[in-house]
C-alpha cells in the first residue's frame, strides 16, 4: 500500500464523490479537510463551525480567516460570517446536509469514537458531538488500520463514544461501508483491494452488500 499521504488523498477523493450540490458540507480536521480540493460543484458550500459558510482554498493567508483546524482558508463569493453561537445553532438545528469527520475507532453499529484517548492528555472535544447529533448525513473518513496495524473498525469502541448516533457511511483506503439499521454493509472495495483483505483487516462484523470491486 502507498504512503500515508497517498492513502489520505485516496480516501478524501472517494469522499468527495459522495457530495452532490446543492448542499452544505462541514469538514472535520485531518482527512476531511483534504476533501474540498476534489469538489468542483459550485453548489456545494463548505461550512466551518468557527463561523463561516463559504470556505474555499486559501489564496493569500489571513491569520483571522481560518477553519476549525485553525488552518488558513479562503472565502467564497457569496459567503457569510457569523458567531459560534449561530454556527452551532445551524449544526444542532439540522441545517448542515453532510458532515465528513475523522474517527479513531468505529464500532460495528456505526458509532464512532473520535475525541478522547483514555490515559492521554487530550482534553478537547470541539464540535464533534454537535456535528454528530445535528448533521443530516455523517460520513467518516479514516485509515482502515491504526499505526500498529489493528483494525479501526471494531466490535466495540474502547475509547469514549462521540455520540449514540450511528454514522451513515465509512470510507477507508480499503473499502466503503454504509450503515443500515445499525449494521455495517460493505458496498465497495477500493481499487486493488480484495474482499479477503477487507475481511482479514476488519474486526467489526459486516454484511456484504451487492458491491462491485
Amino acid at each position, binding site marked *: 500500500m502507498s504512503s500515508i499521504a497517498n492513502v489520505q488523498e485516496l480516501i478524501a477523493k472517494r469522499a468527495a464523490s459522495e457530495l452532490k450540490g446543492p448542499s452544505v458540507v462541514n469538514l472535520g480536521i485531518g482527512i476531511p479537510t483534504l476533501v474540498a480540493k476534489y469538489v468542483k460543484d459550485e453548489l456545494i458550500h463548505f461550512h466551518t463551525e468557527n463561523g463561516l459558510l463559504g470556505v474555499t482554498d486559501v489564496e493569500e*493567508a489571513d491569520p483571522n*480567516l481560518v477553519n476549525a483546524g485553525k488552518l488558513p482558508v479562503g472565502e467564497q463569493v457569496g459567503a457569510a460570517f457569523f458567531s*459560534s453561537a449561530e454556527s452551532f445553532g445551524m449544526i444542532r438545528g439540522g441545517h448542515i446536509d453532510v458532515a465528513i469527520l475523522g474517527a479513531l475507532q468505529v464500532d460495528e453499529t456505526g458509532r464512532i469514537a473520535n475525541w478522547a484517548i483514555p490515559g492521554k492528555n487530550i482534553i478537547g472535544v470541539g464540535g464533534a458531538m454537535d456535528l454528530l447529533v445535528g448533521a443530516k448525513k455523517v460520513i467518516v473518513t479514516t485509515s482502515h488500520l491504526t499505526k500498529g496495524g489493528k483494525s479501526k473498525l471494531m466490535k466495540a469502541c474502547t475509547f469514549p463514544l462521540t455520540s449514540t448516533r450511528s454514522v451513515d457511511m465509512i470510507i477507508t483506503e480499503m473499502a466503503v461501508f454504509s450503515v443500515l439499521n445499525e449494521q455495517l454493509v460493505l458496498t465497495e472495495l477500493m481499487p486493488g483491494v480484495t474482499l479477503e483483505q477487507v475481511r482479514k483487516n476488519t474486526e467489526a462484523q459486516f454484511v456484504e452488500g451487492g458491491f462491485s470491486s
Partner: protein
Amino acid sequence: MVGGFGLVGAPLTLIEGLTRKDLNELTIISNNLGEAGEGLGVLLRQRKIRKAIGSYFTSNREVGEAYQRGEIDLQLLPQGTLAESMRAGGAGIGGYYTKTGVGTELALGKEIREINGEPYLFEQALRADVALIRAHKADTLGNLIYYKTARNFNPVMATAADLVIAEVDEIVGVGELSAEEVVTPHLFVDRLLVAEKILTKEGVVYR
C-alpha cells in the same frame, strides 16, 4: 470570559494586561487556553487560573500537564454547548435542553429529559463577572463589528458578563457604522480600547 478561537479573535492586549496584574484563582471561560506560552497560555504558566471552562484545551499541551499535576480544574463542554450556555446566560435563559452529548462521558451526572420522544441533556446558562472580547471596529458609543472568523465567541460573550471590555482595531465616530450591520449593539459594551498586541502572519506582534 475571554473571546477567541485559539489566538484568532482573542483580545491579546487585554490578556497581556491580565498577566501583569496581581490576580489569582481566576475562572476562565474560553474555548481554549491559548497556545503554549501564548495568549491565555501565559496566565496558565503564571498559575493564575484555578479553573477553566472550554471545549478544546488540546491546542495547548501545557493545560493537560497542569491538570495532571492537579494545578487546574477543567470543565469540558461540547463547543456548541459552550456557545449556547453563554448565549442563554446573556439572554436571560436559566438553562436549556440539547441533544448534544447524550449518551457520552460528557453527559455523566447531567439530567436527561425526553422531549417529543427524544432524549435531551439539561445544560445551565453560563455568565461571567467580566468578558474580555476582540472586535474589529467600535464606534465611540460601543457598537461593534467584527472581522471574518475572528468573530467566533466574541459577540455571544459580549452579552453574558457584568462588565464587557472590547479590544478593537479602530474606534470610529458615531454614525460611521451602519445601523443594519452592527453585530453587537452598544448596550452590551462597557469599555473600549485599541489593540496593541495583534495576531499577524508572523505570529503575535506589537503594532
